[in-house]
């Protein structure tokens, strides 16, 4: 991908806001990690002492802080990128970020309270992250914590005045919940781990994988990358929490794209997630995936384009997972239920039917594996130091809960361990491992037969199977239509007259949430997991979405955006055997 193309796509993702990136399940075994209690580390001791000093010193001020939290994210990352058989980038990073959450006022009303009518909502935007030394030098760390705490304090006092004034001059708030929930502190230290350097074998393995894409001269991008990460997170707060956790992840991604003669860009992605690079799939599995991608791209290039369509469709497991993540998951994030600019699709539906009776939805960050796949939304404690727990959101179609951070909403005064954020942003209620389950399930052939029946009943000549997707996005605010879009990569027409299935390209799935849910008519017994990273107002967090395949009686497809660029004018240069280092 060119730099510019990457910039463009990144910008697009950020603009879209709520999005689940591409990903794939891994097939490997899990290894349970011990969380044995240990004595606090030097970092905890340093931060704890400086936090106490700040609370005592600032207690003398007219507006003393009632809550102060220091969170340190120590990240070690290792990455290798290759393209068409050659290494394009090798990167290793190690850094520490300190995030300060300082609150003045009270649990009921503090400086983070949204200021209505302002574009910036409260003091949440001031959650700045600063760089800390990567060495445990008490004096250096304390000095940086002091400087940032003082800055945060001064801003917090100003923000609180604004929040109080805003509350007094505007109409009464619809949701008068407190600004911070009262929670029990946690004292726990997981053992520290070291991120093993990526083994020497990875560069040749990735070169070999991305070289496969050079076999097709019309494939314009052909990449294979690996990215491993270790995050040691330390949370120290004025309520007494002293928490140290270690999380690891490994992602291997294959990406290739081609261009149809009409200019349409046709990408395919496959990604594999595990908690350690050693647990990623064997090379043979990866080679098979790359070869499947090549075959798909060649077929897609010649495939006919899809015209706008309404009718029945099957979303296969991973597509259905993304569909739920976008359309349902983002709308049951707790903080949206008190934000008066949000659509709040489900706010008044607590205890009522929101999905067909045969469907249940749980968010379970305590699961490391789901249906045989590693699940990227696994954690033991969220970014506010609250213990993870399974949250049954929908039971037999009935809405039971929201995804809660420490920002309460009406009827939900406590967190349920879903306060998540990328380092530097204010945690809000976010998704973890989304699991859709069906009490009535058909086999995959039976579901396909139901699709054909549905199409016939609607007088259609075909139904659709959305076999793979790139991702999607949704709007949840009131100022825009509450619509969603899911971008399928591989779509088949299934004809009612028994003709062979036909691969088509250029179809985007669109719709609105409540209508879409009312049209889910059946589910299969085959569950698949999609691993990815999800972006929203608190940044990018790893998530997964598992679902059986779903039959939807009516979906709408619109034409996909098309590039005006022609394919290359000259043929590809020869790949020179033996020129590799």
């Amino acid at each position, binding site marked *: 991908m060119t730099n510019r193309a990457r910039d463009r796509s990144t910008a697009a993702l950020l603009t879209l806001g709520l999005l689940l990136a591409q990903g794939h399940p891994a097939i490997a075994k899990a290894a349970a990690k011990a969380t044995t209690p240990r004595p606090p580390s030097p970092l905890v001791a*340093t931060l704890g002492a400086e936090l106490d000093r700040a609370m005592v010193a600032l207690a003398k001020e007219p507006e003393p802080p009632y809550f102060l939290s220091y969170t340190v994210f120590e990240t070690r990352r290792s990455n290798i990128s290759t393209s068409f058989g*050659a290494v394009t980038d090798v990167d290793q990073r190690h850094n520490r970020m300190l995030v300060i959450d300082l609150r003045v006022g009270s649990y009921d009303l503090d400086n983070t309270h949204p200021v209505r009518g302002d574009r910036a909502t409260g003091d949440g935007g001031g959650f700045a992250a600063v760089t800390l030394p990567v060495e445990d030098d008490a004096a250096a760390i304390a000095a940086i914590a002091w400087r940032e705490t003082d800055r945060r304090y001064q801003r917090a006092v100003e923000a609180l005045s604004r929040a109080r004034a805003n509350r007094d001059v505007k109409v009464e708030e619809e949701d008068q919940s407190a600004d911070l929930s009262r929670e029990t502190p946690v004292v726990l230290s997981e053992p520290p781990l070291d991120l093993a350097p990526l083994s020497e074998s990875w560069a040749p393995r990735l070169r070999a994988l991305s070289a496969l894409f050079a076999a097709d001269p019309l494939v314009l991008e052909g990449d294979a990358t690996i990215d491993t990460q270790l995050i040691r997170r330390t949370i120290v707060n004025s309520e007494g929490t002293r928490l140290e956790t270690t999380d690891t992840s490994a992602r291997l991604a294959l990406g290739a794209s081609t261009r149809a003669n009409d200019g349409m860009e046709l990408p395919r992605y496959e990604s594999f997630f595990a908690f350690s690079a050693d647990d990623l799939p064997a090379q043979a599995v990866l080679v098979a995936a790359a070869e499947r991608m090549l075959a798909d791209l060649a077929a897609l290039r010649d495939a006919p384009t899809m015209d706008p369509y309404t009718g029945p469709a099957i979303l296969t497991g991973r597509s259905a997972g993304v569909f739920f993540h976008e359309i349902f998951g983002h709308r049951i994030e707790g903080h949206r239920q008190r934000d008066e600019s949000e659509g709040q699709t489900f706010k008044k539906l607590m205890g009522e039917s929101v999905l067909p009776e045969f469907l249940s939805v749980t968010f379970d960050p305590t699961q490391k594996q789901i249906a045989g796949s590693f699940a990227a939304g696994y954690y033991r404690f969220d970014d506010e130091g609250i213990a993870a727990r399974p949250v049954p959101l929908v039971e037999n179609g009935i809405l039971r809960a929201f995804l809660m951070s420490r920002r309460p909403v009406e009827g939900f005064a406590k967190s349920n361990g879903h306060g998540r954020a990328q380092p530097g942003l204010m945690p809000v209620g976010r998704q973890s491992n989304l699991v859709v389950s069906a009490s009535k399930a058909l086999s995959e052939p039976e579901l396909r037969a139901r699709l054909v029946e549905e199409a016939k009943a609607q007088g259609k000549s075909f139904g659709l199977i959305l076999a793979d997707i790139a991702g999607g996005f949704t709007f949840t605010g009131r100022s825009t239509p509450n619509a969603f879009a899911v971008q399928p990569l591989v779509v088949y027409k299934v004809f009612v007259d028994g003709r062979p299935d036909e691969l088509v390209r250029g179809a985007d799935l669109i719709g609105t949430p409540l209508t879409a849910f009312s049209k889910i008519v059946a589910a299969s017994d085959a569950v698949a997991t999609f691993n990815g990273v999800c972006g929203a107002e608190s940044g990018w967090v790893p998530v997964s979405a598992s679902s059986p395949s779903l039959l939807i009686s009516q979906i709408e497809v619109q034409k996909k955006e098309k590039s005006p660029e022609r394919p290359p004018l000259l043929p590809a*240069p020869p790949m020179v055997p033996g020129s590799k280092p």
Partner: protein
Amino acid sequence: MTSRILALGIALAAPGLSQQTASESPSALKVDETTAVGGADADPVIAATRAELDRAVASLRLEGRPAPYYAGAVVNDYSVLQAGATRGSLLASSNATDRHLQLYLRVGTEARDNSKLLNPRGGAAIPELPEDDDIGALRRALWLGLDETYKIEVEDYARKLAALARQSQSETPDLPDFQRPRGAVVLQPLAAPNSEIEPWEKLVREASRDLPNSLEDSEVATTVTRRLARFVDSDGNVARHTKSLYEIVARAQTRAGDGMVVRDYVSFHAARPEDLPTPEALRAAVRELGARVVAAAAAPAMPEPYTGPVLFEGDAAAAVLVSLVGHAEAPAPEPVLEDPRMAAGVRRFLEPSPWIGRVGKRVTARFFDIKDDPTLATYRGQALVGHYPIDDEGVVPVPVTIVERGILRGFITTRTPREVGAPSTGHARALPGLADFFGCVRPVPGVLVFGNADGDEVTPEEVRARFLETLGEEGLSHGYVVRRVRNLAVDPPEADEAATLGERGPAAVGDPLEVVRVAADGSESAARGVRFSRLDARALRNVILASAGETGTRLTNLVAAAPGVRTSGAITTSVIGPMAVLFEELELVPEVGPFERPPVYPSPPERAAPVTKPRRGKSGR
């Protein structure tokens, strides 16, 4: 402050490696490069680049549209070590490599081609090149890059002709868009990769320990950049050379009692490690920095605007001269605008040289001779960071007389001519990310040499005496001496500062960092919050005196903001020039608030805990 370590990014420099082969003249006949260069075809990057450039010129065609007549590429292999520390503790360190490609493809003819068009689409994309020397993979990336570039340039060419047809002709009608000197061949051997990072980590860790905890921010950072540059074009020019830059920057920031931010830094730039200060000398400079910032914070703020003589001493003398002359001597090509309403914005961003149209006229004090001579490799035993053997358009540089006895004689140039028939002076230096503004490379200063036209020996003390005399003549009770000026390429503006910089004159002149108020009797007191009012190259006309000769001249190696670009794009420049410069009249104004409150509660006690065993992050393969 860590973000700044990374933002220091990639700066280029020239160590004094010898040229193996070079044609005598940039306009020499095209040579048979396979025999003349010898090793060029054995270099997989040069071989792959040449194959695709040749294929592009020979075969890239769109029916009814002009073919490419020229293709060139710069491939830069960067090896960058970075380490930063605060208060004796490592913030981050890295040892990274990167390969960066810049493509130039011209369609039409030399007389009129696609270049210089500024349109809202910007230039072509830059493909990511593999870091492996894999000819097949390199050619594939170049193939796609050239294909995309060609399609964009064909469209740009048509749009440029349309824009020119619609607008009244402001440019010289006969001035060609491009000139094609051929036959330059410079091929240096491949240099060894960067050394280990551990000694650099130790250096910054120890140096940063001496800054007091009470400072709000402090950091000592080092960046060691090795740039292996390859230039290849479809005319047979080829170059491969290596440049290194060793950079150490120590920064300190605190707040005065009224909340005004007081910041300062010291920086060292060298082309060879042996030209850097010793660790002991570095620690001494850092301690001095800490003391200076603390003292400045306690000094009274400048009470009122000042107009009168201003003396620049030491670092500030070189900094102000390179800012003013570097900007004036290197005019950017005049862009062709599709939308004339963009003109004001372009001028704000790329401030035109105040010397345009003044060749043959006086532009500085009459005693100044100024040359730009990148062929100089050393001065008094020190290597010059502004030296390079060949520029980024494949032209061997020549010394250029800029000013003679105060009269402007010429400009440094590139292959984009400023005058009919005037060849490139070999000053095209591509800045990563900035080079393709209008499809042409910008001229950038190399080694600026200031001389006294009368051959006088003038010591810094004589300049200072003259300063005091002038104060007396003007009847002023005091004047100001500027000892250090903020270099925006070393200490880039914060986001909230960037917006106001445009109001205060050309790009590269940063605010004074260290200023002393000098009474007519010569006694000094520290001053705080002193800012330049409008300051550009026109001020060089009212320089009264500058030190010169053996005792009055010194070398300053530095990185500077690219000429005419306000905030980004660092380039290496060496200044051989005066240690003291006296301006007859400059305007200085006080910095105005509102300022944030100073800290509400006191800093933690000074160092207590011992430093633990360091952990480090480093990469390589």
